[in-house]
């Protein structure tokens, strides 16, 4: 999907060597405004939907349970876990390929064991030991061994695909048949969080190798297993892939050999359906779950279906370029303060819709190390006006750049920019809106030539360390002209957060860092958009997971 490029806005990296495209995958619910196409597709989908409806009652697997139909706007490229990093791909891969660790019940602050029976980190956070469950087996009945884990991890690294950065600096070794040891070059307390990413699902090394899979260096050229994995899944998860079509639908069938608690639904159909049609489908019972409605659409569904509305791990932020060569106005510290306190964060949430939340700091609210909502900046017009006066600026005029064709979880960035413009007008700052198509806007954003920019950052994995990119001299900061030597205090705190190993140390360090960044610097975190999940009332146990939307295997 075109919007994927936009995640590319994250691209480049905090972790050395991450490929430029790595972020491009994780852009969920980012859609190009392509109304005519959408209408055509909608019509086609409605036809398809009519055809698919009958299946709901027919297919009862041997364990009973029926079919679950999930509607989403596809962002899908491959069923090969070693290459997948797209939102839909991650959702589909999750119940097919079990990972060593996972996040239970949508709680991403704590990785819990899945294929591993427990895990242990050394005090220096450089060695991680994972004893494997002996009962775990693949869908063909072969037991899961340490060899499979090492093969899968090495394969991800050597494929050099989008998820490869997750294992940068990590060496996987099989201590014995049922113990995996991961060692890292530097202290890496965030590793368990990355291990829980569905891209690091464990594949059956024997069958994958037999079908051209390779975990050796040069696998990016030598590995031929993608096509095989698109047709036939080789994981140890509760579901198997029985149909895989990147443009229409993916069908998962229950793995009757599953080693853990078997899921209730015998079959899960994930269909590519545009957001407007999803609303109709859930109401008519055509599908059970919709993942892409906007908060404004959700209002109409309430009462007739269950609706979850929660903030996503995406942070929409504004920056004022700190580089005087780009703009002497925006690099002025007092001007930055005026913008920070001139924004009406509550009114921005109104644009984003119910379920969105003000971003207290740059780290999303439900991650370890997030700032308390009480610490969020509140609008203070007199303070903003005073700062503007102190800067010696009288009705300054500044250009605000943004991608005009992007909609994230129902938020049109043009609308958000228009609201920012109205907010700042009230404190005496004139904003000229400079919209551009994503591709063009990304260029000016990446070379750091935007005086002010309205962008977003989506978490690559649920840990605060992903946000060090916003500290002086790092990836995003350079785009905002915030050079390495610009703010020694923030840089020092960032260094402290990076090297802290214990959980409590890390939480304190990241909180301090964000508080400092809320006082000074070019970034103003605005909000986290709302994810809307609407489901038919027959679906039980519905929970939102910030990384893979829903646990299909846990639905009852």
């Amino acid at each position: 999907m075109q919007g994927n490029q936009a995640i590319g806005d994250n691209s480049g990296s905090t972790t050395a060597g991450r490929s430029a495209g790595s972020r491009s995958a994780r852009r969920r619910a980012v859609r190009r405004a392509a109304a005519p196409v959408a209408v055509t597709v909608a019509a086609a989908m409605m036809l398809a939907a009519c055809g698919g409806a009958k299946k709901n009652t027919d297919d009862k697997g041997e364990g009973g349970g029926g079919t679950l139909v999930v509607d989403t706007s596809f962002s899908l490229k491959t069923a090969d876990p070693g290459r997948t990093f797209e939102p839909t791909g991650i959702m589909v891969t999750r119940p097919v390929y079990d990972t060593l660790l996972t996040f239970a019940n949508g709680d991403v602050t704590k990785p819990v064991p899945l294929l591993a029976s427990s895990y242990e980190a050394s005090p220096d956070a450089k060695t991680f030991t994972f004893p494997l469950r002996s009962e775990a087996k693949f869908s063909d009945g072969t037991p899961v061994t340490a060899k499979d884990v090492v093969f899968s991890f090495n394969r991800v690294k050597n494929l050099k695909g989008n998820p490869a950065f997750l294992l940068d600096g990590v060496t996987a070794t099989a201590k014995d048949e049922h113990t995996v040891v991961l060692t890292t070059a530097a202290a890496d307390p965030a590793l368990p969080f990355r291990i829980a990413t569905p891209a690091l699902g464990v594949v059956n090394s024997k069958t994958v190798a037999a079908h051209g899979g390779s975990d050796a260096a040069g696998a990016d050229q030598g590995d031929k297993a993608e096509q095989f994995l698109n047709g036939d899944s080789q994981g140890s998860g509760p579901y198997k892939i029985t149909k895989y079509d990147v443009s229409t639908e993916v069908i998962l069938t229950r793995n009757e050999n599953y080693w853990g608690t078997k899921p209730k639904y015998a079959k899960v159909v994930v269909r590519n359906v545009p957001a407007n049609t999803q609303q109709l489908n859930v109401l008519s019972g055509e599908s059970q779950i919709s993942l892409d409605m906007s908060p404004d659409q959700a209002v109409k569904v309430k009462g007739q279906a269950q609706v979850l509305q929660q903030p996503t791990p995406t942070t929409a932020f504004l920056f004022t370029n700190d580089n005087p060569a780009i703009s002497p106005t925006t690099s002025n510290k007092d001007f930055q303060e005026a913008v920070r306190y001139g924004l009406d964060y509550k009114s921005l949430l109104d644009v984003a819709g119910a379920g969105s939340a003000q971003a207290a700091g740059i780290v999303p609210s439900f991650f370890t190390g997030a700032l308390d909502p009480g610490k969020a900046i509140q609008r203070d017009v007199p303070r903003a006006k005073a700062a503007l006066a102190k800067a010696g600026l009288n009705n300054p005029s500044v250009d605000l750049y943004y991608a005009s064709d992007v909609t994230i979880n129902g938020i049109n960035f043009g609308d958000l920019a228009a609201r920012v413009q109205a907010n700042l007008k009230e404190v005496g700052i004139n904003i000229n809106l400079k919209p551009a198509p994503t591709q063009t806007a990304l260029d000016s954003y990446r070379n750091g030539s935007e005086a002010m920019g309205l962008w977003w950052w989506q978490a690559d994995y649920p840990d605060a360390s992903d946000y060090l990119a916003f500290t002086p001299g790092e990836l995003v900061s350079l785009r905002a002209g915030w050079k390495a030597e610009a703010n020694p205090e923030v840089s020092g705190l960032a260094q402290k957060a990076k090297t802290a190993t214990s959980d409590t140390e890390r939480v304190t360090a990241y909180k301090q860092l964000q508080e400092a960044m809320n006082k000074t610097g070019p970034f103003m975190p605005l909000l986290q958009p709302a994810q809307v999940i609407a489901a038919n009332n027959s679906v039980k146990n519905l929970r939102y997971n910030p990384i893979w939307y829903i646990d299909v295997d846990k639905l009852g």
Partner: protein
Amino acid sequence: MNATRLFLGDRLGADRTPSPDDDAPRRKPRRAGKSPWRSPLAVTGLAIIGVFLIAAVFASLISPEDPLAQKWPKYQSPSGDHWFGTDQLGRDILSRVIHGTRISLPLALLLVVLAMVIGTVLGAVAGYFGGWIDMVVMRCADLVLAFPAIILAMAVVAALGPNLTNAVLAVVIVSWPTYARVVRGLVLTLRQSDFVQADRLLGASGWRVLAVDLRPNLAGPVAVLAALDLGNAVLLLSGLSFLGLGAQPPAAEWGAMVNAGSANFDAWWVAVFPGAAILLSVLAFNFLGDTLRDALDPRTARAIRK
């Protein structure tokens, strides 16, 4: 013969514009009350355009609110407070539709005049002088006509950068060839006429022939074409804005407003009212164009009626 009469008319009465009556045979005087301007369509068209013109001129006086003020709750359905409801940012849609006339009407007029002038001059020159000028101009016109107008306009705006000025420029670029083709055809048929030949023999230059002898004969058809093109221009401009290539936020432009409404069909009023404004203005301009054709170009009008 028609041409002869025109020639005589020109010689005798300097360069007066031929009145519609010139074309109608004098022996059969038209019955009173048959003026095309009195037909229901003409009256409707003029009335609508009149309303839009008043709205455009007095927009800030008659619109109830500031079109850019984001003071109200978003997606309020039409009510006594907001006749047309509010949009996704809580702006008053009635005020925005009224202010939209200030963008759509003057720009449509401007771009039609530009396209008309450029197209007419190029077409006349190509038709009269022929040769390589004709070749170059007409191949350029063919090049433009080979593409669907909106697609070419999109490409032009994409290349120049999305804003209203470039959108107008793009529409001018795609619409001049129509005028050039029509005018060239007319000039080709007229330039062998006796009255042109006579003027040439009297020593008139090519430019004088074009400006004095041919201009009055071209004015009618070109004016008709331009009037019919106005509706088209409004539609193309709104189309570009709908696609995000024309007016940029927060400007109140009809096409952009329809686009905002298409994001949420439940709030039908966001798209319906600006959409209706586009519909009405295009319809009115077409009525006006038809009437103008009946008045200035009765032969075509009669041919169509048959």
